[in-house]
């Protein structure tokens, strides 16, 4: 059906409206803006000093020369995953806290537009948060990754998409179980931390745990990161595996989110969600 005179039926306008809602908030709150970069930078400073401690000891020992760079890049890419998830989850919580979900679900905004706006907001968070942290790593800890920038950006893409998948799952859990499930939403991404191999190769895990780890796109993405930094090449097969797994997780988590929304529609939760 075409729009009424004076109105547009524009998906882009609705997504833009959702983005403007978040930009209005950011614009007037510098602590909020600061918080985007605060955690990544603090995390990076801790690991940066760890690498300065390890650096001289590993400098003459073959592959270990790359350890400081691997650790710092691991910190940066792990943060991309976390920001990717939190970008979706925090945007969703904003609507829950303000009891605005009912208004949104009754507006012409489609569910996929709502999710796309959240994903775009997570990219903003990644650009600001991880961007500042990267700058700190380059300036203060002499991180040199320019030559592997393309390979690492592919790893980043894999991790960001998985962050979105986890974010969708976290949103769905809060929608289904209420704000009581908020803690799960915060914690869920860290559950996969030990299995992702951000700071160590998957081969150090017990063999049975390696099987579990390789079922996660994050393990392949971080292995590809190490291949890029140590061998200076793009591990296409690992990245392709990571992306294929991402597809499975993203579709699966997206389906679960949709089911939780439909379940909310059946149980009458959508209009009354919030604090």
């Amino acid at each position, binding site marked *: 059906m075409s729009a009424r005179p004076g*109105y*547009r*039926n524009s998906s882009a306008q609705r997504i833009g409206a959702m983005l403007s809602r978040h930009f209005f908030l950011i614009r007037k709150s510098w602590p909020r803006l600061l918080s985007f970069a605060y955690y990544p930078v603090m995390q990076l400073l801790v690991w940066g000093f760890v690498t300065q401690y390890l650096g001289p000891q590993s400098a003459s020992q073959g592959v270990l020369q790359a350890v400081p760079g691997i650790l710092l890049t691991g910190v940066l890419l792990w943060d991309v995953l976390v920001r990717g998830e939190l970008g979706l989850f925090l945007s969703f919580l904003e609507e829950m806290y303000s009891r605005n979900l009912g208004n949104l*679900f009754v507006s*012409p905004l489609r569910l996929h537009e709502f999710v796309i706006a959240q994903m775009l907001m997570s990219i903003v968070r990644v650009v600001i948060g991880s961007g500042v942290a990267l700058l700190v790593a380059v300036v203060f800890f002499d991180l040199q990754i320019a030559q592997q920038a393309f390979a690492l950006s592919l790893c980043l893409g894999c991790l960001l998409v998985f962050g979105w998948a986890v974010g969708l799952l976290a949103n769905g859990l809060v929608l289904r179980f209420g704000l009581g499930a908020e803690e799960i939403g915060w914690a869920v991404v860290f559950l996969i931390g030990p299995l992702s191999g951000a700071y160590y190769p998957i081969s150090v895990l017990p063999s049975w745990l390696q099987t579990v780890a390789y079922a996660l796109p994050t393990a392949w993405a971080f292995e590809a990161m190490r291949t890029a930094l140590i061998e200076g090449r793009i591990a296409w097969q690992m990245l392709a595996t990571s992306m294929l797994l991402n597809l499975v997780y993203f579709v699966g988590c997206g389906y679960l989110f949709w089911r939780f929304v439909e379940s909310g529609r059946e149980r*009458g939760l*959508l*209009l009354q969600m919030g604090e």
Partner: protein
Amino acid sequence: MHDSMLTVSEPRTPAIVVRDLKKSYGAVDAVRGITFSVAPGETVGLLGGNGAGKTTTISMLLGVLKPSAGSIELLGLSLAAHRYDILPRINFTSPYVDLPKRLSVVENLRVFAGLYGLRDGKKRIANLLGELDLEEVADRPYANLSAGQRTRVSLAKSLLNSPELLLLDEPTASLDPDVGDRMRSLLERYRKQSGCAMLLASHNMAEVERLCDDVIMLKRGAIVDKGSPAALLTKYGRSNLDDVFLDISRGNATTAAA
């Protein structure tokens, strides 16, 4: 119980047609097969005590609650099949929802102007701020507004897209008599200017008498009576709807109406 359709003499496409609508939560029947219609430009009141099924009915009409059975047509379209064709043409207010508190009044309205696809959102927002006497607080964060101001902002949001159908769940609850009266005047004016149909759930009987052409009385999820406020007063031999409401909700209806 199947109720006959509320008589609507207009031959035009009804704004709302609800047929045998049911909602159950497990063994609990929240709405038990209600049937009614609302004509374009008509205001119909949905009355009933707590738990009568008013909010459940409105939630189903908004598409945020899936009916267990029955059908809903809004503005001539099936809600189940054409939800996203209908939503741009309707709007609502409800005490169960709120707006982002740290955004200003204007920012909130701009967001919703975008969501409803307004081409000239700024002009529409400026008009509504003027009509609802919100110009002075336009740049103030929503969190810093009084309850009355928040209700007016919520009403401004609901009028942004010049809806053809407005679903109002207790729109003047928590307002002082002065602000409440101004809200009712605004709704009357909007209806007169636009020909918008309204479904109004309220506990304020004076408001219902003033605004509504017809009233649907709900009790435990079923329609127990309906008619114009004047017809109900005559039928129950009462001088105000408060007493009619009490007769029905306390089960004195048969005696009183006899």
